[in-house]
């Protein structure tokens, strides 16, 4: 079990290796500094390149709880902090009335028992040797107002519930914020975070990931898949460029089918793993994969 105070860069490297996450120096250093400086880490990058995975790896490696807040349009503060369980409160009132036990009823029904804890409150009330990992996923999908609220939360790590008082985190959660850059985030949020951008991996890194995640796959086929995917990424007319997750999907699909060799017709069969919209699908149907493969073989 690791201790945050004495955690070294080498320990962090081991954690990522154990989780089969190929992390380069930049990723390791950003996570390390975020843990040491106790600052949230804002990770931006292309979809499917392993942003969310970092939080998962961290929570499993540090043996602590992962609390996930998935952002979406219209998300409000109350949905992320707490809500009262009105149904249970009403039933409780009825039961108490039936037993004629209404003394101190108000305090009772507004106690923690009837509090529905949402992710931010959960992160604050977390008890354990290690602080929890709070993953605020796809912050760019939430409204700017929510971003403003989050600033306040990240500065103080405390929440006030009028009926119960103020709760302050005993241990500041390890916060990972991810964004797909569908909109520009405010300067305030950026200023409070450390920043990491994860782009598409280079050939060597991607091959390493495929070998690690799909070890049963023939080495030659792995190389072919990685090369084909990187060629597709270079195409200008592809709207949604394939990320690492698409590479892994294709590798797993090929592996499950027990293919010994990759050719043009087999790639076309698995196009659904790479193309995620009709335009890309029709563009890729026109690509001459056989020449790509023969080029690689040479």
């Amino acid at each position, binding site marked *: 079990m690791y201790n945050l105070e004495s955690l070294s860069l080498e320990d962090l490297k081991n954690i990522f290796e154990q989780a089969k996450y190929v992390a380069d*120096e*930049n990723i390791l*250093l*950003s996570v*390390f*500094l975020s843990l*040491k*400086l106790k*600052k949230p880490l*804002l990770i*931006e990058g292309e979809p499917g390149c392993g942003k969310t995975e970092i939080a998962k790896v961290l929570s499993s490696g540090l043996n602590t709880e992962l609390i996930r807040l998935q952002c*979406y*349009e*219209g*998300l*409000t503060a109350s949905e992320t902090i707490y809500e*009262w369980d*009105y*149904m249970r*409160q*009403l039933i409780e*009132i*009825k039961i108490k*009335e039936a037993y004629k036990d209404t003394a101190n009823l108000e305090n009772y029904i507004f106690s923690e028992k009837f509090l529905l804890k949402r992710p931010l409150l959960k992160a604050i009330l977390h008890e354990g040797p290690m602080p929890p990992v709070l993953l605020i996923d796809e912050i*760019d*999908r939430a409204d*700017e107002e929510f971003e403003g609220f989050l600033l306040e939360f990240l500065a103080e790590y405390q929440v006030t519930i009028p009926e119960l008082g103020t709760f302050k985190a005993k241990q500041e959660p390890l916060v990972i914020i991810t964004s797909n*850059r*569908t*909109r*520009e985030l405010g*300067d305030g949020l*950026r*200023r409070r*975070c*450390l*920043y*990491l*951008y994860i782009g598409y991996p280079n050939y060597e890194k991607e091959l390493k990931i495929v070998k690690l995640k799909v070890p049963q796959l023939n080495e030659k086929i792995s190389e072919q898949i990685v090369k084909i995917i990187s060629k597709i990424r270079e195409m200008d007319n592809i709207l949604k460029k394939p990320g690492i997750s698409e590479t892994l999907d294709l590798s797993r699909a090929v592996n499950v089918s027990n293919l010994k060799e990759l050719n043009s017709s087999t790639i076309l069969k698995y196009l659904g793993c790479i193309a995620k919209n009709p335009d890309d699908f029709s563009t890729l149907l026109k690509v001459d994969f056989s020449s790509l493969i023969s080029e690689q073989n040479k």
Partner: protein
Amino acid sequence: MNSNKLIVFVLSIARYLRFKGVKVSPMDSVDALRSLMFFENPSRRLIYSVLKTIFVKRYEDYFIFDSLFQLLYNQIFNQQEEGGEEAIIQSLKALDNIIIEQAMESNQDNINLGYKVMYSPYESKSKRELRIQEYKDVIYVRRSLRLLAKLLATYKGLRYESKRKGLIDMRRTYRKNLSYGGDIITLMKKDRKLNKAKILLICDISGSMDDHSEKLFALMYCVANKFHKGSTFCFSTRLLNVSDYLKGCTFERAKENLSEKIDIWKSGTRIGLALSTLVNDYSKFLDQRTIMIIVSDGLDLGDAEILKNSMKEIKRKVKYVVWFNPLADEKDYRPYAIGMRAALDYIDVFAPFSYLWNEKYLRKEIIKQLSNSKSKNILFQAQKELNV
């Protein structure tokens, strides 16, 4: 490595980054120094990675950081052995001059407006260097667009409001019935609020609209970045989808993208062709949740029939068509240009372009045009006059 030199280096790079427009706070410098203290004798590569993580908050700023790091590292650490403290100070001064010169050059205003604004149907490939412009425009136009989306809302958001029909609102039911001792007598209901709209912006960037390029840019940036479901197109002789050049970019970066990548600025006007491209190639953007905003002066002498058919098809597919015309800012303006005349029947709201920066007037105009008192508005009057 000499720790004093390292401190000088960290503070210098923070200062130069600020000068280059990267927002680095004094706390960031403190964090950077604290972080470097975690490592004994950090290598150049490690210093680079640590400072990049702490100082850079945007992907676009990575490139500024990279070039500055290289420049400064060589200046400070290589000069150290040769000339000591004095040499470092001298080299930093020299560096100051280089950076100031670079900044001055990039800010030079070289827009030449000495040409006559007129209609042309021909394409001329030209790029447009957008001037430094205040971000304030984006803030103002955002307010107006939000108002417009709210007034013409096309679909329900995730927020609730109390309604007579809908789901049971437990919170309000509970609070309402507290006065009856907790017995449920009145049920309160809630339903999703109709407060969202998908905005599709089509901007005319032809030569006749060139005076308004800066405002158009602010509008395009705002729609692409401040609305979840906003799409931005611009046209002159062709229609281009520019959302990807604007989305997720800083204001400056987006400006650079549009200046560099769009080659139809100040070209001729073919509104009909542009709108028919929209109908044929980008039909997925047109649905009953969409408010289509067109910003154009309507000066198109092309085939009015194509424009009319396209507008008809667009009107059928989208919920509202709103047209902002810069010429309508003039008091005596009447929409008699061929383009405008062909489109008139299919426009729900027609307003002067400047109203996009004036929330109060825009609200009045939208309410007026959507209410029964249509006779008061410019659109209705023009239609009537044309019929006569």
